[in-house]
């Protein structure tokens, strides 16, 4: 499946600023020390809308996954499958994600992953997760 062109939305721009520098930036509730996804608008524990941006380590682990298959083209060629997933950041929040450089056989709950950033010619950078060993 083709990766679409990504544009800023004015609300999550710091995430893309971080991505441009290959850093994963997420939201942080200072009063609860709760780490949240980059698009979180408020803290579900204390309700504050005063969330700060904070660097995340980029370390993550696989929660669950799916492999999607596009429809064959008119000439019969089949697009390569896409490995899509829910991943858990080391800081706690889960993100919907696309995996890169994985084999079906290695997919398992808890598989260590790390965020990497792709910088396409057109549009904003996007984040992928790759298997990671120390």
């Amino acid at each position, binding site marked *: 499946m083709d990766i*679409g062109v990504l544009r800023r939305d004015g*609300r999550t721009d710091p995430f893309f600023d971080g991505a441009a520098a290959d850093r994963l930036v997420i939201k942080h509730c200072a009063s609860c020390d709760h780490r949240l996804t*980059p698009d979180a608008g408020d803290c579900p524990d204390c309700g504050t809308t005063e969330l700060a941006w904070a660097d995340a380590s980029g370390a993550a682990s696989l929660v*669950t996954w799916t*492999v999607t298959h596009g429809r064959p083209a008119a000439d019969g060629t089949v697009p390569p499958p896409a490995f899509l997933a*829910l991943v858990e950041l080391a800081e706690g*929040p889960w993100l919907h994600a696309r995996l890169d450089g994985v084999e079906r056989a290695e997919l398992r709950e808890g598989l260590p992953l790390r965020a990497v950033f792709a910088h396409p010619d057109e549009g904003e950078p*996007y984040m992928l997760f790759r298997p990671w060993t120390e």
Partner: protein
Amino acid sequence: MGDGTAIAGLGMTELGKVYGRSPRRLAADAVRLAAADAGLAPGELDGLIVSHGLGGSPGIELADALGMRDLRLLTQMNSFGATAGAMVAHAAMSVRSGAASAVACVFADAPLKPKQSSGAAYHRDAREWYGFGGMTAALGLRSVNSFYALAAQRHMARYGTTSEQLGAIAVATREWATRNPLAQMRDPITLEDHQNSRWVAEPLHLLDCCLVSNGAIAVIVTSAERARDLARPPVHLWGWGQGHPGLRKERGSEWGLTTGAVASGATAMKMAGVTPSDVTVCELYDCYTYTVLVSLEDYGFCAKGEGGAFAASGALGPGGSLPTNTGGGQLSAYYMWGMTPLSEAVIQARGDGGERQAPSNDVVLVSGNGGILDHHSTLIVSPHPKGA
């Protein structure tokens, strides 16, 4: 018994590849059919609840289209796939309180267009996506299929559930559909057919996914007392419930493994005074085979993690110990959101199932499921008055 409520009428338009009628027109047709089924003139209805659907579903202007006057209840409701149960419960409470006396609840949708694939009907596609929220879609998570696949895969990884066990649900459901003249898919399938059907989003095959259908279905809710004097046998409402677990997606979450059926089922069964072992027929929301599997667990028909083995035991099909989705469900009959299980429950409770009538219809459980396992509703219905 004075406060009992019942479903007194059922109206179903043609379902499936039905073109040329707008959702509003289909909805109006279904309400008229349901009123006629009950033996009521449309003017005798004093309440109308319209299910909010996806794009193009009718709103409360449907009352004008039907020429309804002096209504005492008119509203649109939305709990996604849990809406049918929520509508019926609201109608029953309105009747019980005296706020209204005969309430139509209707769902209509017409996502299918001529010369367009079923997949395109609900598919999101765009070239550009916006913000962090758009990144998920930009990267390829664009279809509900993918999100249910994530949930099903998690269950597989946690409990050893297999694709063949999901396939057993598809096969049993199709076996019921072969006996339903209204079903869109009536050719029997085998487990091998299921396994050979194309991947939609692993671990879901095409035959793990529901159909797409045009049409409308309506029911009439009134008091049990009044229903006794109407045209068709009353389908008594014994209990109802909802469950919206609001699971967070963060460390420790049980997302994908458990649903609102836990709370919804417990509430409805307690109100009805029954336990899972009393239920004789299940009509479960089956947008995917996995939804059936996880609902069976969460209702307590088997232990958590054993839904796959339970389905593979043959319990769900004709002759099984828990006849489930006896009309062919959304997988094989027609996809009318929560009206698919509800309409079949009415048919079974009335004993109108013909070739597919379950051997005992004493206690019928109906489920609704919305979002990605986010919202749940349950109804318990019976041919018998509650407590009789």
